[in-house]
């Protein structure tokens, strides 16, 4: 069993990063193709869940010492903040700004405040999912 666990844990670490990057990809893809902050967040959360299964709650908590409720709050603040920026420049709430840039490596890229908003969504989803899993896990 011990050996198995080691293998499992090793694999889990690798798979975690693969899933995580996949999630990041989905997140950025959202504006043009299917994906987005919400799905990205859920996929990230499932990556963390994988770690939880491979190790256990306490270890993961030591690995990622995060208060997920704060993640939720920060996500909300980010989303609200992004939406509120426009208020300060005399534009209706939630007016987004974007422009197209040519960056080396990426080529034509758009920098979009909507992406910041989506990041907020992402954080909330990760935070909430992990809060649920952690509290239920703690209870058992």
């Amino acid at each position: 069993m011990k050996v198995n666990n080691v293998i499992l844990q090793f694999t889990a670490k690798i798979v975690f990063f693969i899933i995580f990057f996949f999630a990041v990809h989905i997140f950025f893809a959202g504006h043009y193709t299917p994906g987005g902050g919400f799905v990205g967040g859920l996929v990230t959360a499932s990556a963390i869940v994988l770690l939880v299964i491979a190790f256990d709650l306490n270890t993961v908590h030591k690995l990622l010492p995060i208060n997920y409720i704060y993640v939720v709050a920060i996500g909300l603040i980010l989303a609200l903040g992004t939406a509120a920026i426009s208020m300060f420049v005399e534009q209706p709430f939630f007016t987004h700004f974007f422009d197209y840039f040519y960056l080396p490596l990426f080529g034509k890229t758009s920098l979009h405040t909507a992406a910041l908003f989506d990041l907020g969504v992402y954080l909330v989803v990760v935070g909430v999912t992990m809060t649920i899993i952690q509290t239920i896990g703690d209870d058992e």
Partner: protein
Amino acid sequence: MNNFLLLPIIIPFFFAMILMFGQKNLKYQRITTILGLIISIICAFALLFNVKENGPQTLTLGSWPAPFGITMVSDMLSALLVLTTLVIAFFIVWYGFGSIGKERERFFYYPGVMFILTGVNGAFTTGDIFNMFVFFEVLLMASYLLIVLGGEKSQLRESIKYILVNVISSALFVITVAYLYSVVGTLNMADISVKIAEINQPGIVTVIAVLFLLVFGMKAAIFPLYFWLPNAYAAPPIPVLALFGALLTKVGVYAIMRTYTLFFTHDLAFTHELLLVLAILTIIAGSIGALAHFDVKQIIIYNIVIAVGVILFGVAQMNEAALEGAVFYLVHDMIIKAALFMLIGIVIYITGTTNLRQMGGLMKNYPALGWFYLIAALGLAGVPPLSGFIGKLLIIQGGFEAGNTWSSIFILASSLVVLLSVIRIFIYAFWGEQGQVSNNINKTTYNIMFYPTVLLVFISILYGVGTEFVVPFIDDAAKLLSDPSIYTDAVLKGGN
């Protein structure tokens, strides 16, 4: 374009977020909440006067033109309700310092309150029917948090029922919106109003109107959809009950009011007649419950149902007098219900029971409480010059004008049942021989609960006595309700 009208929604929202930090720090939680409420109230006041001055304010979010983006509309009705909501919440939160208990305060009670305010104010302000659904969900989710917070047995048991009912009503809400979208192809409320007028409300729209009535009616607790309410509301502690009693059903009432004055105004003989019948049945059902119980909580809870019926009766008349009365009564009822729940909360605190038959003689040691209860009770029954009177007067005046003579007289008679049910509490709890008294009454706690309650009763008295100062506001609201074009023009033509 007026971003300002969003503030009463996003300020509580923002404070809810920052309250998610510092969960165990009681002082931080309390001060931040009060601060947030005060700022919101100031904004709501400013907004109210802005709307009075400049007519309905609109904001098309994201700069997208009206029917395509989400539009927020602050007309007089919503500005009034938003302000009332925040003021009531302020007093309830203050009251809660004495009665909600430190454990709950440390477990997201305050974020819950702020979220519920976000949802309620959002629902009052939104000009988009699907966005209204989203705000409903915000306030419902926050209400789930508050109703279950603490996890007492009865809370858990009743929460299940409460949530079940609301999940179902939400599903119905969504499909009703979908039906409407299928027929008129838009979600913006002003646009819906214009388009329904364009096609002259065909039968299918009337069916959808009825569905809306039932969906909102489930939240507003109208007959025959109110059954879930009495037990569910009795489960959480008093401040939460006061919040629910004052605000939640009123959101449903508001939604009926809005849709039935803005959208579905072309087949009054059917839709509003149905509303009238349901309103009367609601009053009867509420009256039966209010008289059937000797439990103080239940008596006041059933009075919520009665009031909903009275307000909707006003809406069903669809003339300016009755609509004005309905708005008057709506605001009054929010204030007075909060005050009454707070008052009986104190009574429960003193006596340690909710059973009226075990109480008695409180007048001897708590005369001030007794007087304020009596004033609140008379106000509820609509005795002039207290707050409930003008609303009821205008409602029956509108009822008579609309030719509903007998049902208007019935509304008058129903006040009597209201009076009987609340005076019973006075006679049994405050008069009579000394009854049961709890053995750990803390004077400080009592005072923390007493002062906000008294202030709220005072506000209700001012609302009644100072009606003249309120009339211009309510008048604007009623004008807008009786003439949808003011609303639609403000939204679609940007005519601020």
